[in-house]
């Protein structure tokens, strides 16, 4: 019996060179690397859960203006869609169009209540509502987004103009305090 030198013999009978090299351990390392997927899937799952918790089906109905800080309350309700009056420190707008400047209103005497520019725009909005919704009754809803530091003297004139234009159902835009919940709806008359 001939004497052979020691060494590997496993897989010598395999004719395909690539497979033989792999089996005998001479093959090159693969170019593919295994990614550790567990941590990535964990992170994705946490993100999905967090985003689902913060998800709001009603969407963002109005944007907070830069110079307006709305107050925080405990008893709030969901916001609907209505014309928006934004009362900031610099300007008062109706759906983005400037109607007055708070400084001018503050300088006026206390007996001055009228706000013709706003009233006119509100009347236009009301007329537009009646054109767009011919069969529906006008609800008179309006959203007021005012800064915390606005004086009632200014707000009163805005409310007066709203009332004259038959916008009597006022919704003040607010934020919810942490841990607070929606309030019960008042009964419909």
């Amino acid at each position: 019996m001939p004497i052979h030198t020691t060494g590997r013999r496993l897989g010598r009978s395999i004719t395909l060179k690539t497979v033989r090299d792999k089996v005998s351990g001479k093959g090159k390392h693969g170019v593919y690397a295994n990614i550790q997927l567990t941590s990535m899937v964990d992170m994705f799952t946490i993100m999905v859960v967090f985003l689902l918790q913060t998800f709001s089906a009603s969407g963002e109905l109005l944007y907070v203006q830069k110079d307006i800080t709305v107050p925080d309350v405990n008893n709030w309700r969901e916001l609907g869609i209505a014309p928006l009056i934004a009362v900031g420190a610099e300007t008062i707008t109706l759906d983005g169009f400037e109607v007055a400047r708070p400084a001018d209103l503050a300088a006026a005497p206390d007996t001055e209540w009228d706000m013709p520019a706003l009233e006119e725009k509100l009347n236009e909005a009301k007329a537009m509502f009646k054109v767009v919704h011919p069969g529906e009754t006008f609800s008179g809803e309006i959203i007021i987004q005012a800064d915390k530091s606005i004086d009632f003297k200014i707000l009163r004139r805005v409310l007066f103009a709203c009332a004259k234009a038959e916008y009597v159902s006022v919704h003040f835009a607010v934020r919810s305090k942490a841990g607070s919940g929606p309030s019960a709806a008042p009964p419909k008359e």
Partner: protein
Amino acid sequence: MGVSIASSGGKRSLDAELNLVPFIDLLSSCIAFLLMTAVWSSMYRIDATNKNSGAAGTMEKKDTPVDRLVLVVDTRGYTVIAGKEKYLIPKKGELYDVPELEKKLKQVKGYYPDRLDMNVAVSVGVLYADITQAMDTSIGMGFTDVSLTDATGVI
């Protein structure tokens, strides 16, 4: 789901390998959708009936006389008017005494358990934050039908 199978002759492995590709695809799609539709600053509302439509401080005339429930907010503090009774809750320094107002409104609610209306009458010089705080407190005490008016002539 792919299952790893041992070589022929051996026992089948008990470990099963999940195919994670569709799972990761689903998670990625969910994250993309939720990020695009995320609302980071939710706004809510607090309701009031606007009664600034004429003579200041007027009350609605009804067929049956009812005791008026008014919460006056002025620069001195709160004044709760329930029928013929008046309770003054002065400010504590620069701040309004909200806990005391809560107590008083709770007491008034005890007298008028069926009433849901509260007329918040505000005078010039009061800030919007203090108005909403008074309205919020009223709603919290069960007076959910809040109306807002000018305080001139109410007291």
